[in-house]
């Protein structure tokens, strides 16, 4: 089949003002999200952030308190789970232990009244796709976790749903297997053209798999974007800290014109832009944007400089990673390439970065609380 017609197989998903309350607790707070047909969308966030609730709501396992859901432009909010025609892969595999692999995969087709011949053909095709065709006569208890999850994936795609939901499908597997299956899932997504919605708390996994990522926190979506957008242009401190490593600097702030400056332990740094609403600013820096220099070399123009002491130095092969404790007690993370002069623990150094590489964000204590 050609790439153009596989693309049409996925359906657009619209989550509109989805709210779910349990008594006083709000699990989902007015969540809206549009997912393109055939897109790989990851819902990323810490546990209890609402990502799994969102998935359960779309699958029909949980009822909404208010809001609407549409798949391919049609509202599904009134349909029970078994009439939604959405594939779901669970973290715990959920294969039927009393059926063979083949019977498990054939189950949704049998329910749809398909004749045996057509059923067998589709089962073989789905098992081929996950490379489990040789295991059709085995029982789930005879398979490893990774194999069971591949069978579960085959079972969820065999009836050709326009949408596939995956709830931390690799959460119970070890790292090596997880990395390999991530690539398998990516390949299957490409081959099928189905819309995938994937839930994980693992930001690396989200970056590997997704076209776009929706970052959840406390029942709300903080930001939706590609991995690059979330890393380079986070709109909230929570997103900045959840995706990738970062250093955040706080200090007494002055705004003059279109520029904000912070005074940290007597040293003044400049950050481009200013915050609306007079909120407390925080300067966010990615480790690869930072560099270290001896205190005797003067900073280049357009560079900020803060003095600190190397508190950890790690050789990583491809480069080095440093922790620098600044004079106000905050810790900066620096990643430097191999060519840079090595420093050792206890060295007094200057932390340098270009003004344009710093990101000015509104301070938000929720960002730290949810990280722990």
């Amino acid at each position, binding site marked *: 089949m050609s790439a153009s017609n596989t693309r049409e197989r996925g359906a657009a998903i619209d989550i509109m003002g989805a709210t779910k309350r349990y008594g006083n607790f709000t699990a989902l707070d007015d969540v809206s999200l549009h997912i393109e047909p055939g897109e790989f969308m990851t819902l990323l966030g810490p546990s209890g952030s609402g990502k799994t609730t969102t998935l359960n709501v779309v699958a029909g396992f949980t009822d909404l308190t208010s809001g609407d859901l549409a798949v391919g432009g049609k509202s599904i909010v009134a349909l029970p789970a078994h009439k*939604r025609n959405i594939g779901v892969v669970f973290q715990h595999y*959920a294969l039927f232990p009393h059926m063979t692999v083949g019977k498990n995969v054939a189950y949704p087709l049998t329910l749809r009244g398909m004749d045996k011949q057509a059923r067998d053909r589709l089962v073989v095709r789905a098992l081929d796709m996950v490379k489990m065709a040789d295991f059709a006569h085995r029982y789930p*208890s005879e398979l490893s976790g990774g194999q069971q999850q591949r069978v579960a994936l085959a079972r969820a795609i065999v009836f050709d749903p326009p949408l596939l939901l995956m709830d931390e499908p690799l959460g119970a597997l070890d790292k090596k297997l997880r990395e390999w299956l991530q690539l398998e899932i990516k390949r299957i997504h490409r081959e099928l053209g189905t819309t995938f919605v994937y839930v994980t708390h693992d930001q690396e996994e989200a970056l590997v798999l997704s076209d776009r990522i929706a970052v959840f926190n406390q029942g709300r979506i903080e930001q939706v974007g590609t991995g690059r957008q979330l890393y380079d242009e986070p709109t909230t401190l929570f997103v900045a800290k959840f995706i990738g490593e970062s250093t955040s600097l706080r200090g007494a702030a002055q705004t003059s014109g279109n520029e904000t400056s912070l005074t940290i332990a007597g040293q003044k740094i400049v950050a481009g832009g200013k915050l609306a609403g007079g909120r407390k600013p925080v300067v966010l820096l990615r480790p690869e944007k930072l560099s270290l220099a001896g205190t005797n070399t003067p900073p280049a123009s357009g560079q900020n400089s803060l003095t600190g002491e190397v508190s950890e130095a790690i050789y990583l092969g491809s480069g080095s990673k440093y922790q620098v404790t600044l004079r106000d007690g905050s810790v900066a993370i620096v990643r430097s390439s191999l060519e840079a002069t090595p420093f050792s623990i206890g060295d007094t150094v200057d932390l340098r970065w270009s003004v344009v590489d710093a990101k000015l964000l509104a301070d938000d204590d929720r960002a730290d609380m949810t990280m722990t």
Partner: protein
Amino acid sequence: MRLAPFRILLGLFCLLVAVWLVMPTLVIIPMSFNEKKSLAFPPSGFSWQWYANFFTNPDWLSSFFNSLRVAGIVAVAATLIGTLASLGLSRMKHSGAGLLRAILITPMIVPGVVLAIGIYAVYLDYQLVGTTTGFVIAHTMLAIPFVIIAVSASLEVFDVRLETAAASLGASRFTTFRTVTLPLIAPGILSGLLFAFVTSFDEIIVALFITSPYLKTLPVQIFTSITRDADPTVTAVGTIIFIATTLIISAGLIISSKSTRS
């Protein structure tokens, strides 16, 4: 090696306990082949006459078929009610589930005589004494706890999330129950059915209260014949029941142990 005498003593003691537990049951087997019409032990001679009597005497046969009929209906009714109750209890998130379970189990804990008096008093008013309906109602009540215990044990190891998975694949709640839940808890239901059957088949206390000359179950017939005329047929019946029950219960145990393993 110095422990050897102690070990021998311990072994003998265990043997003694085993004999004590099993002897009263085993003693009826040789007695059932007694040549004389007496319940004396040890028996003398050898004959099949008491077995022949059981299979030809209408009193014995009718009571046997009464028991079979009552136990058959009870097994089905108790299994149906008990299974539905277990399913309901396992899904109840309410704290009242524990209390409800305790209430459903009480017939197993309350002394049989107490139950029998109550049942008898009520049955007199409603003319249920000596009727199949009366026996079925009373025995079903006694058998339900056994079904609940067996089925609940199956449900404990049943992964409810499989039902969610079935729903996502397109199965309605009834289809899910038929194709996923039922096959997976079937061993528990089957062993519950066997226990329910046996509970009714050898029930004597309540049966003695609600029996009538027109409807006797086998245990009642055994009791009256042994107290009235020391008929050795009871030993033949006892042997038959012993062998049948042993087979049924071991089948039940094998089935339930298989289900917990899988």
